[in-house]
């Protein structure tokens, strides 16, 4: 494992850049645990101060230190992205592998459910749900809802992959080695499916963070929780750009961009490395 990381660090420039960018992001997340300011409190520092040595990203119109507030925002957004990704990946892999390998009525039922989720219009439903659950629409619940909506497309992708893998000789070899269907799915098929899962995970994280930003900017999520989205909401609410408090919009935007770019580079470089086919091709196997 360590050798893999060392190889990636040494030879892939994208990975190095990703580590630097995400290192910064993770540093911010860790710093949030040591924040001198409670993000829930307002007017603890003078408001509308531009960036300086004392307030790295300046202060907001609500008298909060923007840098320390953003450490919480990054932590929460990342938390949302990761939890959503985990929930949706797990469901999509389970559904895709089962539907693909078992076939028959199980396949038809699972795909019918999956297709239903694909066609449901997400944003209106989210808006509706956030109206209904206004008070309990915290980050975890939002992550669960987004996770439940984010698995269907990939499940179908995984299922197609499994359908073709089922016909390969090595599946038959495994059957004749006495392996049960369950272990065939895990040992033979899952390694082929994982690169797909990995590649779409990035997409999923970015999508969920983006969804959260959309909801927050519209004022529909729990606005007291600091996230990248609520940062933009409050900045907008106080007419930051008009009032000349440009750092309130710029800082969250830049941090978001760094987060997205870092994740993208990380996933692309790791994915290319773990996909044995590209690796084989590169080393001439």
């Amino acid at each position, binding site marked *: 494992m360590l050798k893999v990381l060392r*190889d*990636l660090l*040494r*030879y*892939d420039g994208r990975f190095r850049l990703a580590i630097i960018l995400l290192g910064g992001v993770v540093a911010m997340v860790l710093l949030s645990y040591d924040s001198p300011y409670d993000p829930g409190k307002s007017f603890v520092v003078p408001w509308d101060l531009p960036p300086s040595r004392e307030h790295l990203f300046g202060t907001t119109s609500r008298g909060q230190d923007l840098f320390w507030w953003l450490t919480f925002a990054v932590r929460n957004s990342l938390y949302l992205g990761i939890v959503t990704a985990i929930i949706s990946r797990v469901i999509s892999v389970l559904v895709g592998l089962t539907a693909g390998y078992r076939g028959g009525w199980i396949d038809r039922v699972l795909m019918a459910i999956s297709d239903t989720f694909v066609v449901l219009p997400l944003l209106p439903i989210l808006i509706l749900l956030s109206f209904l659950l206004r008070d309990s629409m915290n980050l975890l619940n939002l992550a669960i809802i987004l996770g439940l909506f984010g698995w269907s497309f990939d499940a179908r992708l995984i299922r197609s992959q499994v359908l073709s893998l089922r016909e390969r000789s090595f599946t038959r070899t495994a059957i004749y080695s006495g392996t049960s269907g369950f272990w065939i799915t895990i040992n033979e098929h899952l390694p082929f499916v994982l690169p797909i899962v990995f590649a779409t995970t990035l997409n999923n994280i970015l999508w969920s963070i983006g969804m959260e930003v959309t909801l927050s900017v519209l004022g529909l999520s729990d606005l007291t929780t600091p996230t990248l989205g609520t940062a933009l909401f409050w900045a907008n609410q106080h007419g930051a750009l008009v009032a000349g408090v440009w750092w309130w919009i710029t800082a969250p935007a830049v941090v978001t961009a760094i987060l997205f770019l870092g994740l993208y580079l990380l996933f692309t470089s790791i994915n290319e*490395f773990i996909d044995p086919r590209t*690796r084989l091709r*590169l*080393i*001439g196997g």
Partner: protein
Amino acid sequence: MTLLSVQNLHAYYRTEAYGISRTVRAVDGVSFDLFPNEIYGVAGESSCGKTTLIKVISGSIKHPLKAFEGSVNYNFGDYKVDMLQISQSELRRNVRWKRISYVMQGSMSVLNPVRKVIKTFEDIVDTHEHITDKNEFLQRTRTHVNRLGLPTDVLNAYPHQLSGGMRQRVAIALATVFQPALIIADEPTTALDVVVQRGVLHMIKDIQAKSNNTVLLVTHDMAVHANVADRVMIMYAGRIAEEAPTESIFNAPLHPYTQHLINSLPVIGEKSTKASLKGSPPNLADPPSGCRFHPRCPYVMDECRTVAPDLISVKERHRVACHLVKEGSQ
């Protein structure tokens, strides 16, 4: 007059990834000539370098493959080509399909699966000479296809509607539309049934006999060479082990590897035990020292482990690279 002269060709695959650098010495010092009006067979196990040799002499030299040394020169009479210097556009315009064409194992790569066969003919003919009269082109194509023994209705079929053997024969028809001086056939019958293989090879022989061109036939199956080729070249680990007219190769093979290739083939009527060669084909990224065949040779001597034998002429048109054979000794 030689059609093709390959001199001391060295072509390697060089890859670098994640700090691992690998050089695969697929063609490592190969020299041979092709003459007009002959069928020249190239034999050898998979990964002996014969596919790389074909790629280089047909101009498909792409990274990570590169020719590091040597020359590949064609003489088409009115037109000469240095394959290692020629540009891709010149290759496309004047060489491919017109003077050199290629038939590979698995014809699907040349037949477009979503278009009727006649359309693929049209595409290829059109890129080289713009078709002005559609009917004349159709007539010409039908005549060509019939002359090769194929029914006209293959032209209106989609590739998947034809059997494997028929597709391969269509691929050969495509390859001969412009009557090229050199047809390169790379394992053209390897995946085909034995009766179909016979039909496809007959077709190749007929074409060669009628148009007096040159066919370079690459296959690991010595029995095919025995029935089709005029001269055979045996390749091993990127080098030539032996080259001679077909009768000489089969009646008096000099190189132990050639002897093995022939002796390891079962024959109907002979129940005697056939031995297999020990070991496996060498890794071209890290080939054995000296004579590359020495780890598997039943007659290995000390010299073989350290000194690579030169390819020498032992009699007219018979060359061998083996320490067992001295110059002019036959």
